[in-house]
């Protein structure tokens, strides 16, 4: 076994093949077979992810040349600690979402047929992006991800969902175009597309800067950074809960992931102090604006969706905190940023699942609909609460650990203004999260309208929330995983 892990072929392609196979099968098989296929596929993908983890533990970072064609001609997959973290995260969250969806979709018989293939495509696309080291391949991956996500949002065919998905699609398309143009410039000037190879030859030129700027713009649009965020809240709020969880938890992170690879890996020398500060400022603006808008929402899912805008803003603080701030501050910010991503992914997915359950249970999508929910204390409410703890960055949660690291980094690098952003952002998130909690304690006039959601719905939300919480206590391992991928500093 051990020798197979060290010497056997890498299992990376399976992480994409399996979801693709799943989608093919679920498109051709009948309705009755879907649960079986889904279970098998999720099981196999989880297994593959675990084996990939074991392989990585044995042999460390490695590349996988597809079709045995070497770079620059071919495309290669790249596995490092960061990619592995996201793979694990994706597998974990998506399988819980699958579990949730399996039960939840019984309410939506029509959407059910095409939900599974789209979900599988989405999964495949995410894995493609985490593993990809090729600029154009990332374009295809982004499109695959964007289309399947748009499809998932539109699945209910409701008016709101359609408007939201159209908005989402157009934003995604615009973002992809900007990315594609950047790729075109880079290929024209550099003659290659592999990120790691480009890192060696990337020079400070007009075309290089223009390409980076374009790609950054596209990615910012795709990750809904302020002020390009307006497409996100309706899309995430109007989708089915498992879809929202997936989108907010994982899909929105893909663009950020690429952004980091781009700047910190491909062109670290091109990131000037002011550019990094600008990115950070956008993040800060998102934190405030998203938080403020979340406070103003009356619909539960809209509130959660705006909170995503705010939380994604924190991620952008990674750039100012890693640019020219010294080794220790860079390390802290790097770990803090990715830990923030991880904990937000878990917490937000939990929160959307829980919110969906609560809406289902209470029969109303708005905040006053929650009146009296505290009486029944469904696990979903508990899940929502625990996820909220992580989002607020209160201990003991992953969110707290992440913010702690970011704060430390800011303090160490003397950029005290980010401390203010982090602290006041946390306060702002406390406001909107307690706004929800508070509703649950109000006694309702009609206590009997509560409808207990199925246990699996409740538990899937709770499980993710507990994971987000546990990340606060067990963050040493993820932290180590992240630290192995520190660009430049790993060696």
């Amino acid at each position, binding site marked *: 076994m051990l020798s197979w892990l060290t010497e056997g072929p890498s299992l990376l392609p399976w992480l994409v093949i399996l979801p693709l196979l799943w*989608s093919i099968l679920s498109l051709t098989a009948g309705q009755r077979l879907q649960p079986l296929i889904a279970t098998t596929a999720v099981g196999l993908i989880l297994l593959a992810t675990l084996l990939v983890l074991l392989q990585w533990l044995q042999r460390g970072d490695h590349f996988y040349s597809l079709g045995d064609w070497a770079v620059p001609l071919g495309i290669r997959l790249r596995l490092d600690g960061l990619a592995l973290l996201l793979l694990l995260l994706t597998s974990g969250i998506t399988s819980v979402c699958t579990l949730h969806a399996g039960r939840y979709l019984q309410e939506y018989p029509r959407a059910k047929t*095409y939900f599974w293939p789209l979900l599988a495509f989405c999964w495949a696309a995410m894995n493609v992006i985490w593993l990809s080291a090729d600029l154009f391949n990332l374009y295809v991956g982004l499109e695959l991800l964007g289309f399947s996500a748009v499809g998932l949002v539109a699945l209910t065919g409701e008016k709101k969902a359609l408007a939201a998905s159209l908005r989402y699609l157009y934003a995604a398309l615009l973002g992809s175009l900007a990315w594609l143009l950047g790729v075109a410039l880079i290929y024209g000037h550099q003659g290659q597309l592999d990120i790691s190879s480009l890192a060696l030859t990337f020079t400070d030129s007009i075309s290089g800067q223009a390409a980076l700027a374009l790609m950054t713009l596209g990615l910012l649009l795709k990750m809904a950074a302020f002020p390009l965020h307006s497409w996100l809240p309706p899309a995430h709020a109007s989708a089915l809960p498992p879809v929202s969880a997936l989108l907010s938890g994982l899909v929105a992170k893909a663009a950020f992931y690429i952004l980091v690879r781009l700047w910190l890996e491909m062109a670290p020398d091109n990131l000037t102090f002011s550019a990094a500060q600008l990115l950070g400022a956008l993040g800060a603006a998102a934190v405030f604006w998203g938080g403020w808008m979340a406070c103003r929402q009356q619909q539960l899912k809209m509130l959660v969706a705006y909170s995503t805008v705010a939380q994604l803003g924190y991620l952008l603080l990674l750039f100012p905190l890693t640019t020219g701030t010294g080794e220790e501050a860079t390390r802290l910010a790097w770990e803090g940023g990715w830990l923030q991503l991880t904990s937000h992914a878990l917490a937000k997915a939990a929160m959307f699942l829980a919110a969906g359950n609560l809406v289902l249970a209470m029969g109303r999508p708005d905040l006053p609909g929650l009146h009296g929910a505290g009486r029944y204390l469904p696990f979903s409410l508990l899940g929502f609460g625990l996820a909220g703890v992580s989002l607020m960055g209160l201990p003991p949660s992953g969110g707290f650990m992440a913010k702690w690291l970011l704060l430390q980094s800011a303090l160490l690098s003397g950029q005290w203004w980010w401390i203010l952003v982090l602290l006041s952002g946390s306060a702002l998130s406390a406001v909107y999260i307690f706004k929800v909690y508070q509703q649950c304690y109000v006694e309702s006039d009609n206590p009997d309208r509560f409808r207990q959601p199925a246990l699996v719905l409740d538990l899937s939300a709770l499980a993710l929330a507990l994971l987000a919480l546990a990340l606060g206590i067990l963050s040493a391992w993820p932290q180590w995983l992240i630290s192995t991928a520190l660009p430049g500093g790993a060696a």
Partner: protein
Amino acid sequence: MIDLLLALTLPLVALGVLLARELFRAVVMFIAFGLLMALVWVRLQAPDLALAEAAIGAGLTGVLLLDALGHLRQPHPPGQPLRSLLPLLTILALVLAGALGLVLLGALLEPLQPSVNLPAEVALHIEASGVAHPVTAVLLAFRAWDTLLEVAVILVAVVVGLALRFSHDDAAAESRVSSPLLQGMLSWLLPLMLLVALYLLWIGSYRSGGAFQAAAVMAAMLVLLRLSGQQLPGQNHPLLLRAGLVGGLGTFLLLGSVQLLQGGAFLAWPEQLAGAFILLVETALTFSLALLLYALFEASPAPARKGHPPRTGDQPS
């Protein structure tokens, strides 16, 4: 000279597309633009792209747009196509565009210093790829990963289309054009198109052409059939149709995994049989892609039928 002229025409036609008063005119201009693009690809010595652009970019996209247009009224009064809500936004957009234009100009005119000579690499390895035509080699050997995912992209679009199709109204109930002359013409045009498609598929391994172009021709054939009101073979077997839709991706995956299962790399073709494998993949792709492209057209939600106009209660005046 001709290049300058053509290059100058392109933005002008594009401007026409954007500024056309009527949407229909804009779409027609767009199709013309697509055909111009095909010419441009010829001038850029990319005949594959010319074929694809004409068939897919102009042809299929045009048909899709026209078809959609037929089902949409125009709530906006014609004229003022560039009407936007905020004048500020307009100014902002123009300033942004200007800035981007300058940057782009700078980037495009900068001297090129490629660090890698990829065409040389392609020429070096084409022998090993199993095909003689470089574009096909890139698509199905060197960067087969992209192509695989690209097929998935189309499939996603089709799946979304299927998911959003109205179940209650059968699209076939629509009035379709039919005439004896058309039927007669089709009866010898269709086989010809099939022949052309197969020819394109076959030629792809050593000259311009390949799965995508062939599929586009085949899809056009299917669209023609559909428009002429004929039943498609297998139309009443949804499972068969779906199998056809996923067949390309499935075959690609399976053949790509052959080496993987024997301990090799994913998407690596067996050394001696590379050409055959690629041809197999291409054949499967052609048929499947044809169905997919056709399904893009077909899967669109059927329109409201005559007498049942869409609810117009909240239509802005």
